[in-house]
């Protein structure tokens, strides 16, 4: 009777299922994904330049993905409305890897080989960006990271001639921030960090910074990843005067959770909190508990009134936001939405590319080597393309540096404590982009 159970698996209809399967496999795969495209006005008339954008809309990266979408659309529309790149319209093809690095690599390949993308942009998670960075060296197309992609390894270890990062990361900004807080508040600090490579690289960066500033991390609290209950870790922070403050290097949803836990344990009134910054991470409105917190950013949450470029950028951001998908608008906080540093990273990724393409007279993939050369030498003053401040690309590792602000949260305001010029931010490592 056991044969009764076995029989269905060896029935002679197997060949029919094989027909279905192979035919289905071929049919399904042959239907190329019609990617989401957005472009600009009619003013640019030459053959289009296509930028493939890996815009990660996974729940854990919803804010980063939404900022990337709005700011990429904004920058591309501005390029096209001003005549494109020497008459070439810029098209954007968006693809969502859903937080899966293997999909990111596959989609990047698809964008280049099927959608004929001339340039790749985006990816949020470090593993996505590093995977794509490895791929573009084989595909031989220029890749510019956008929002996220914060792992130092991107330009410190795995750099290659095709990959660029515009905004400073890791120890580039943590070292000067460490120097500021040691000089201002004291030498002994506690740090909470996500216990995976990104968090560990943050820890290493702060250690370097503290050492340079004559301070120390006297209490180190790793928080396992993934962990939604922050209380057991936050409760370890010493508030008896043995540390002068707390560095919070959590990111995304964990940043919000850890900030809430810090408020619940009433730590923020007793100790300065460092590292939490940017209204875009909180739906455009800082929780009251964040008052007094200190952070660094290439862009303040609200436009600096004395900076006309920044005012124009924030105004254009709001206008662009109104044209976007309601889910994106909701994710960013509706009428409270701000670009913040997450949006600024995405915006300047495209504007830097614009400058590079204009300088290289770029018209398509065939001009990749010219674009690499132009991007490597890129340098710009504060203006429409870089409203937050000056920008400079390091030719050796393809890591950009921008004007960076160290600021303190005060209610819904951000008070700039000090401004760091790009040349004050050192290189992350010694990688040579060849």
């Amino acid at each position, binding site marked *: 009777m056991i044969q009764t159970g076995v029989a269905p*698996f060896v029935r002679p209809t197997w060949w029919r299922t094989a027909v279905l399967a192979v035919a289905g496999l071929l049919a399904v795969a042959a239907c190329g994904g019609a990617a989401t495209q957005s472009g600009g006005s009619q003013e640019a008339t030459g053959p289009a330049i296509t930028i493939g954008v890996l815009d990660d809309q996974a729940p854990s990266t919803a804010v980063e993905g*939404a900022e990337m979408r709005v700011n990429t659309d904004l920058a591309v529309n501005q390029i096209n409305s001003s005549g494109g790149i020497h008459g070439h319209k810029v098209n954007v093809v968006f693809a*969502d890897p859903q937080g899966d690095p293997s999909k990111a690599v596959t989609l990047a390949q698809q964008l280049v080989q099927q959608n004929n993308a001339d340039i790749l942009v985006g990816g949020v998670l470090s593993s996505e960006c590093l995977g794509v960075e490895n791929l573009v060296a084989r595909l031989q197309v220029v890749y510019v990271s956008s929002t996220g992609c914060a792992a130092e390894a991107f330009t410190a270890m795995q750099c290659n001639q095709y990959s660029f990062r515009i905004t400073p990361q890791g120890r580039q900004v943590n070292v000067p921030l460490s120097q500021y807080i040691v000089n201002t508040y004291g030498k002994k600090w506690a740090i909470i960090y996500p216990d995976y490579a990104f968090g560990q690289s943050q820890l290493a960066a702060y250690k370097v910074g503290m050492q340079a500033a004559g301070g120390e991390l006297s209490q180190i609290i790793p928080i396992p990843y993934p962990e939604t209950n922050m209380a057991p870790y936050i409760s370890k922070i010493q508030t008896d005067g043995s540390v002068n403050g707390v560095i919070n290097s959590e990111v995304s949803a964990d940043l919000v959770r850890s900030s809430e836990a810090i408020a619940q344990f009433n730590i923020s009134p007793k100790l300065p909190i460092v590292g939490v910054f940017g209204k875009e991470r909180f739906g455009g409105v800082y929780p009251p508990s964040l008052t007094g917190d200190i952070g660094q950013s290439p862009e303040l949450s609200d436009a600096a009134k004395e900076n006309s470029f920044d005012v124009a950028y924030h105004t254009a951001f709001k206008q662009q936001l109104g044209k976007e998908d309601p889910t994106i608008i909701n994710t960013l906080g509706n009428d409270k939405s701000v670009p913040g540093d997450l949006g600024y990273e995405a915006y300047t990724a495209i504007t830097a590319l614009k400058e590079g393409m204009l300088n290289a007279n770029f018209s398509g993939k065939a001009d990749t080597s010219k674009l690499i050369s132009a991007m490597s030498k890129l340098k710009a003053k504060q203006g429409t393309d870089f409203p937050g401040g000056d920008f400079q690309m390091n030719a050796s590792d393809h890591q950009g540096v921008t004007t960076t602000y160290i600021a303190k949260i005060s209610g819904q305001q951000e008070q700039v404590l000090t401004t760091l010029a790009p040349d004050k931010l050192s290189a992350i490592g010694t990688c040579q982009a060849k």
Partner: protein
Amino acid sequence: MSTTIRWAGVVVLVAALFVVPPLYGQFLPQRISDYLIFGLPALAVALIAGHARLLNIGVGATFGVSAYAVAILSQHSVLNPWLLMLGAFAAGLLVSGLFAVYAVVATGLEYLLLTLLTTSAFFTLPLLFAGITGGENGLPVKGAVDISFGLDPLVGNGFYWLLCAITVFWCVLSWYLLASRSGRVMVAIGRNPVRAAAMGYSVRAYQVAVTLYSGAIAACGGWLYALAHAFVFQDLLGLANSVNFVLYSLVGGVDTIIGPLLGTAGLRYLGEYLGTTQSTQTQLYLGVALLVVVYLLPTGVVGGFRQLLRLRYLVRSRGQTDEPLSAALAREAGLDTLLGGADE
């Protein structure tokens, strides 16, 4: 239909798999390559869970460890493609050996939990040994096309044909083994291990064998993934990846050979399609699609197709048997068992 015609049909279809995508060109060979690579561990799930009824959800660990083995070896200047292949298989079989031990010492829910916890533990390995695995950043595979027998996964069709040949090899071998006496015994053990043991079969030996065999298929997938993408990362080892393989297998048909490949292609294509055609609701649509498939086709797409064929056969043969059509339909749907009918 004669056996000759059936075999001819299969040969034509396999030939189509080899020929049509390269002729179509563009991105199609690369796209199908990805489906075949992820289809192999899905096939491994089908064999171990669908046929042998060992609820192993740790196939992703085997897949990931093999991929990491290739990357780590290449980082240490081992660039011989045969050595890399052997290394990947050895690493994969090592993990499978662990699962085989679980098959010997545990059953049912206990076995399921052991595979689940082991997979979770494997997910943390890259972080524990970040120095050699690259930690959360992942690890590039060195050696360019030399490590894939001179075949470039990004250019030309050579690598695609290699993948097709390997996939066909595993499918044919799996079909042959399942159709053999040993395969039937294995399925019988899956259905009722106590009865099979009472008949004198060594239940544990068969379970160890199927675990190692399916592990070899998953390891092969990991090896090919590393060659194709030249980059490995922590998520390859994780539970999410393992669950994906289970889903691919379930959607395609967990008790079939070719269903997992079809499920992989369908689900991965759906994710890619949604990810490039709308902006924010990819995972929601994907989830709803999965629910619909699981609800309407509990035996998977291929299983559902089989049922349709059987129903058609029953309708056509009505009158040639004393069994009422309603009873036959209920038997096909398994309702007779549910209502107390004997199946053995």
